[in-house]
């Protein structure tokens, strides 16, 4: 709840990262963090925000291998929820179940109750295609479409699905790229290939592409793991801003990242949710000893 409760070593590490990477003004980044720690509404951190997604008893896996063994948790609207845990604990599977990307893998299965916008997303009345337009996704490796220009990449979600009307294209490109904090860097070269950008810019382009579809929720599957520290800091700043308009769920390997940019953090271990609570609390006073062991580096 209070930044002073963070361990000094963690802060030092963070500063070291920025110093060694030549990040110009580390203050920028601290600004973003301060912004995030300020609740959007109300006076205290404790004010509950409405629940956007409510997961109950989610089991999922591949063939006979069960990866998620009954997960129940709520994701609050306009918050950044971080999911941490060691490799193979089911973090990615979990978010991929939320927008039903999981089932694209042959032999994958999922069952349980994932309430979103008044429906269980696994009920037969829900079309996964329409669901994914409401719950967008950003992937581990930046994956702009290689045949498309920057502009076409931003519009890809609309052109692919045949929903683009010509008159609004330019507005959407500009507003999406601005929201993804990329506009100033690319406004003069919108017709160059998306692949010509740097890795961090490509990832922000992918975020712009996701935003252009106007989702309610943005899922991010380790969005910074392929990026250098400077590009990572930019994305984290961006996540802080996105919180105002979207509900963000971010899977991360990096506990400092979860600490820096999330409101609540969930700790997964071997397919189960161990603990979910306010980020400040989970890193300072975890309830479960397994969480404590993980965040203090005893395993993982």
């Amino acid at each position: 709840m209070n930044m002073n409760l963070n361990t000094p070593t963690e802060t030092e590490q963070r500063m070291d990262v920025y110093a060694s990477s030549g990040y110009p003004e580390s203050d920028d980044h601290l600004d973003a963090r301060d912004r995030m720690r300020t609740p959007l509404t109300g006076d205290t951190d404790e004010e509950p925000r409405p629940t956007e997604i409510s997961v109950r008893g989610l089991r999922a896996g591949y063939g006979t291998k069960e990866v998620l063994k009954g997960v129940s948790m709520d994701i609050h609207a306009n918050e950044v929820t971080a999911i941490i845990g060691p490799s193979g604990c089911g973090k990615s599977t979990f978010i991929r179940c939320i927008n039903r990307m999981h089932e694209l893998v042959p032999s994958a299965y999922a069952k349980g109750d994932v309430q979103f916008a008044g429906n269980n997303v696994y009920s037969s009345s829900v079309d996964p295609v329409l669901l994914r337009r409401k719950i967008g996704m950003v992937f581990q490796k930046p994956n702009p479409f290689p045949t498309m220009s920057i502009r076409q990449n931003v519009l890809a979600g609309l052109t692919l699905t045949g929903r683009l009307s010509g008159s609004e294209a330019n507005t959407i490109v500009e507003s999406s790229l601005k929201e993804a904090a990329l506009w100033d860097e690319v406004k003069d070269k919108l017709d160059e290939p998306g692949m010509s950008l740097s890795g961090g810019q490509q990832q922000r382009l992918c975020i712009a592409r996701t935003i252009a579809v106007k989702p309610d929720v943005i899922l991010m599957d380790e969005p910074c793991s392929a990026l250098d520290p400077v590009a990572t800091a930019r994305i984290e700043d961006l996540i802080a801003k996105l919180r105002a308009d979207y509900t963000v769920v971010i899977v991360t390997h990096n506990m400092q990242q979860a600490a820096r940019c999330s409101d609540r953090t969930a700790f997964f271990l071997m397919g189960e949710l161990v603990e979910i609570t306010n980020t400040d609390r989970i890193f300072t006073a975890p309830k479960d000893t397994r969480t404590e062991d993980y965040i203090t580096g005893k395993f993982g």
Partner: protein
Amino acid sequence: MQEKRSTWRETLFRNACLVAVVIPLGLLALLIGDVVADGIGRLNGQFLSSYPSRFASRAGILPGLVGSIMLVVLTASLAIPIGVGAALYLEEYAGQETVGDSLAARAARVWDRYFATVIEINVANLAGVPSVIYGLLGLQIFVRVVGMGRSLLAGGATLALLVLPVVIIASREAIRTVPRHLREAAYGLGATRWQVSRRIVLPSAAPGILTGAILAISRAIGETAPIIVIGALTYVTFVPNNLSSEFTALPIQIFNWVSRPQEEFAVNAAAGIIVLLVTVFSLNLIAVLLRNRLERRLR
């Protein structure tokens, strides 16, 4: 000592590989050289624009050339859409239709996977069936049952059947090389399976699909057995002008001339072979150019 021995082996292996390259290329050069030496003198405007004749010097290749080109166009326009469709089904749709772990969903998944495996094995088997068998199949189905008669259309359909397995296999390979993360990006944006296949998978796989398909079809141009079986004529004094027209093709005309006793017809056959080879090489060249062009565009 040790080093010396491995160098010796290295040299031996390198030379053995070199020989393996030289033998087929040398044979090909020998074959082409021999044919060109025999036939090049006969190759002129009269030969390319004349109809068959009892007199070798008046005979020409025109009906065969036109027939072969029309056959290729027909074969390609039948085999490529069907082959690519089958490959898309097998790669993008089969076994991916259901989610959930109810008994019905599980059964559907098992059935889908079983079905795809059966198709997969049989496509590979079909690619190995001798072409004359396809001729017999075409004779029964297209010529007799469907009632196309001994027409160009029946010939094109038979050759399309013949190359279909190869087109399917080549297209599947090409589709498999499309990176998974591109599909995921499109699905994540709310695209349907069709939209992903049409806008993401097919454009990326197009160079590979085209290369495979054109190589398969240029192979079909030289096929003699199946179109003899379905009844292509050897003495055609007209250029086929519609799909139900009777026809002949280059390999049949060549076969006919080769089997004549007179020396002059053997020269005609050599000239005919040159025409056939030029046609096949042009097709292969088109395949390479198309692939390079598409690949450049993708990069």
